[in-house]
């Protein structure tokens, strides 16, 4: 008989943090720097961008030339994980859809993100349209933390004074690429504003910050940066926090449940080591979940006890509810003005150089809220499939000698076409507010477990008319911008049969809302400090606490909220409340 023994770590940490992404990383960083003994558990392996990056590698160094067979965003993308993980399934209720992206590694999904760092605005926290619940906090209450995040981590951008797109403390932004100048010109003709991007990349040295290099413009933030020139939780938070001597990381630790005592207070967590499959428990005076919105909800729902029969912190029954991602839709074409363009290095930064903040007037629209637009294109590093579009469109413009030709082809003339069209493509993608709804949620699937025996999530998510109409508006706007730029668009506009190209929920990887904060314990899971209403030494610091995200990619808000929660924990400790 195989003996089954749980290995107990006798040390009682001041805080146990589950997850090492933006939320867990920030909480760990603040608490460790304040002198607390912190234990951080990460389900995946340790990862240090200084050693483990694929930065500056060439396409031929991948046998599949960067194709997305193994990693969803290609071989060179830093993230270990994807939409499907071997042995870690999730399910969907019939007639609903959700795709769940998980990264299993130090830094979590900060290894895969666009470094686009937007603050939510006053109207995002306290909506004037009454469509969704207000947050229990205002922009003004979070602003000092956004400011601290800007100074600590670094962000470029321009001061614009737009009411619901608050400015930060900005480093200089990268200048636009050539296609981006055309985009800006076309968008402005179409009535769409275009401003400098806002990204967490060090375009200049950040005062007071040691150990991080400035950007050298390879445009490869997504591969992880060897000199820590951009924001990843590993390089900017976890690894620096480890250097204080107060933060210990245990990697390959998949947390099974949060342990509680008879009074219902959290005492620590149990986890399975994913390498040796042994079971462990660790103890902490405070437990902080930053496992990602859905993974933290799963953990709470799987942590039931006599004191918390419906799952830990779930007396409201709302854990897993109000799940919402961003909307997403995209379009593209090519610019005849950029055919046969002069070659030079325009890699730039790995975040956006320009973007369009939401400009619409909802009183004239048939959907609430809005979206921002991100733009792409340019003379990027060749990778698998990057030329596929050329033979589909090469008949749409005359050759250099002014001749019409047939679509497709081969030989010297086709080879010339590939060169001719290189760098002439433009793309744009909308990222918008999807409404947080009670009926969109995740719960524990009653009959399925993962390979560690942990019950898995079942998703229930459907788009509603508001999101579909928003996607239609995106597509119409994209076409106008492309038209005003003089771009050639080869593909027809998607129609209602595809929800106007609206991506499935989860595809934009901005999910949040599953442990929403609020003042009323019956209508929320957490209080305004992201502290459980039911269990005062339990906190959630990922995107779970979001009442409703704006059209502002959520990382910067996760960081600000987590920093604020960590500050609160320190204050409460001083008052001996926890």
């Amino acid at each position, binding site marked *: 008989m195989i003996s089954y023994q749980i290995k107990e770590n006798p040390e009682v940490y001041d805080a146990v943090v589950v997850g090492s992404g933006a939320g867990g990383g920030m909480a760990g960083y603040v608490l460790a720097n304040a002198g607390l003994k912190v234990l951080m558990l990460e389900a995946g392996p340790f990862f240090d961008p200084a050693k483990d990056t694929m930065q500056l590698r060439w396409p031929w160094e991948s046998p599949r030339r960067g194709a997305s067979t193994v990693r969803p965003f290609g071989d060179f993308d830093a993230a270990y994980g994807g939409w499907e993980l071997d042995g870690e399934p999730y399910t969907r209720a019939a007639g609903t859809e959700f795709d769940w992206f998980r990264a299993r590694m130090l830094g979590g999904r900060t290894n895969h993100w666009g470094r686009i760092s937007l603050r939510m605005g006053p109207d995002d926290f306290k909506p004037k349209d009454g469509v969704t619940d207000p947050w229990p906090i205002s922009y003004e209450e979070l602003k000092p933390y956004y400011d601290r995040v800007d100074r600590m981590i670094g962000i470029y951008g321009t001061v614009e004074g737009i009411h619901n797109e608050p400015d930060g403390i900005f480093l200089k932004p990268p200048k636009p690429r050539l296609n981006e100048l055309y985009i800006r010109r076309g968008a402005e003709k179409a009535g769409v504003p275009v401003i400098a991007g806002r990204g967490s990349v060090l375009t200049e040295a950040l005062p007071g910050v040691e150990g991080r290099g*400035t950007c050298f413009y390879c445009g490869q933030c997504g591969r992880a940066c*060897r000199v820590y020139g951009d924001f990843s939780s590993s390089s900017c938070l976890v690894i620096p926090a480890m250097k204080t001597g107060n933060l210990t990381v245990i990697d390959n630790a998949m947390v099974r449940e949060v342990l509680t005592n008879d009074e219902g207070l959290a005492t620590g967590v149990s986890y399975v080591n994913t390498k040796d499959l042994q079971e462990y428990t660790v103890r902490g005076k405070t437990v902080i979940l930053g496992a990602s919105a859905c993974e933290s909800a799963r953990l709470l729902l799987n942590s039931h006890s006599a004191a918390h029969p419906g799952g830990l912190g779930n007396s409201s029954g709302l854990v897993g509810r109000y799940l919402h991602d961003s909307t997403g839709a995209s379009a593209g074409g090519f610019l005849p003005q950029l055919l046969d363009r002069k070659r030079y290095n325009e890699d730039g930064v790995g975040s956006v150089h320009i973007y369009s903040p939401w400009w619409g007037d909802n009183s004239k629209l048939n959907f609430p809220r809005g979206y921002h637009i991100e733009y792409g294109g340019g003379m990027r590093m060749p990778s*698998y499939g*990057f030329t596929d579009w050329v033979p589909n469109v090469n008949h749409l413009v005359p050759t250099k000698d002014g001749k019409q030709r047939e679509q497709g082809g081969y030989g010297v003339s086709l080879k010339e076409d590939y060169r001719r069209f290189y760098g002439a493509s433009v793309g744009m993608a909308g990222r918008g507010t999807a409404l947080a709804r009670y009926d969109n949620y995740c719960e524990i699937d009653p009959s399925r477990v993962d390979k560690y025996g942990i019950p898995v999530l079942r998703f229930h998510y459907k788009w509603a008319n508001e999101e579909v109409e928003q996607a239609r508006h995106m597509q119409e706007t994209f076409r106008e911008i492309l038209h005003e730029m003089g771009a050639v668009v080869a593909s027809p506009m998607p129609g209602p049969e595809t929800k106007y190209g609206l991506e499935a929920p989860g595809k934009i990887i901005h999910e949040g809302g599953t442990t929403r904060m609020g003042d009323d314990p019956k209508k929320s899971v957490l209080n305004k400090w992201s502290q459980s209403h039911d269990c005062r030494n339990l906190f959630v610091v990922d995107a779970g606490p979001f009442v409703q995200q704006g059209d502002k990619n959520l990382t910067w808000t996760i960081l600000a909220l987590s920093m604020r929660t960590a500050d609160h924990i320190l204050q409460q400790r001083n008052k001996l409340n926890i």
Partner: protein
Amino acid sequence: MNRRDSLKALGLAAAGGALLLDGCGPQSKTGKETAAKGAEKLPGVQDWEHVRNGKLAGETFFTDHELATIGVVADIIIPADGVSGGATDAGVPAFIEFMVKDIPAYQTPMRGGLKWLDVQCQRRYGQVFTECRESQQLELVDEIAYPAKAKPEMRQGVAFFSLMRNLTASGFFTSELGVKDIGYVGNRPGVWDGVPQDVLQAHGFKDAWG
């Protein structure tokens, strides 16, 4: 840290600018060897990914005849010209061999498409594709290389040729030879200060912000 420190951290600054560019340039030796053998595990590659790559590299899918046909078709799609070599010079057949093992959904369309090609040639010219005269090969390719004007009965050939064209172009332009040909000059440390002045002028923009 300033940018110079960044370069130091990359291990490049001490070597000076010239070596810095050489080390990262398209002529880098290390990359070529890695690609050819697929044996060296790069930092950041997970163990299971490396094992999978090695296993695929060790398997054989195409027969010698199929691989030879792929080589001929690939060089028809991307021949050598005054600028660079052709598809086989860039190792395209080996790349396609890897890709059909990496993405098994390509296996039947590729194997069946190659067979379709040979059957067509047998009927028309009494020989498999590789044994046909170049004029005969091109006569058939002309019927499957242009989707809009291809005859309905040639559609299977069009689908095969489109797949083959995409794989060939991917393999060629992501090789050392192809990256140089297409003129990608990034992937090296530098400073981005906006669109060069002469390009701004040529495109009618007044300054770097348009």
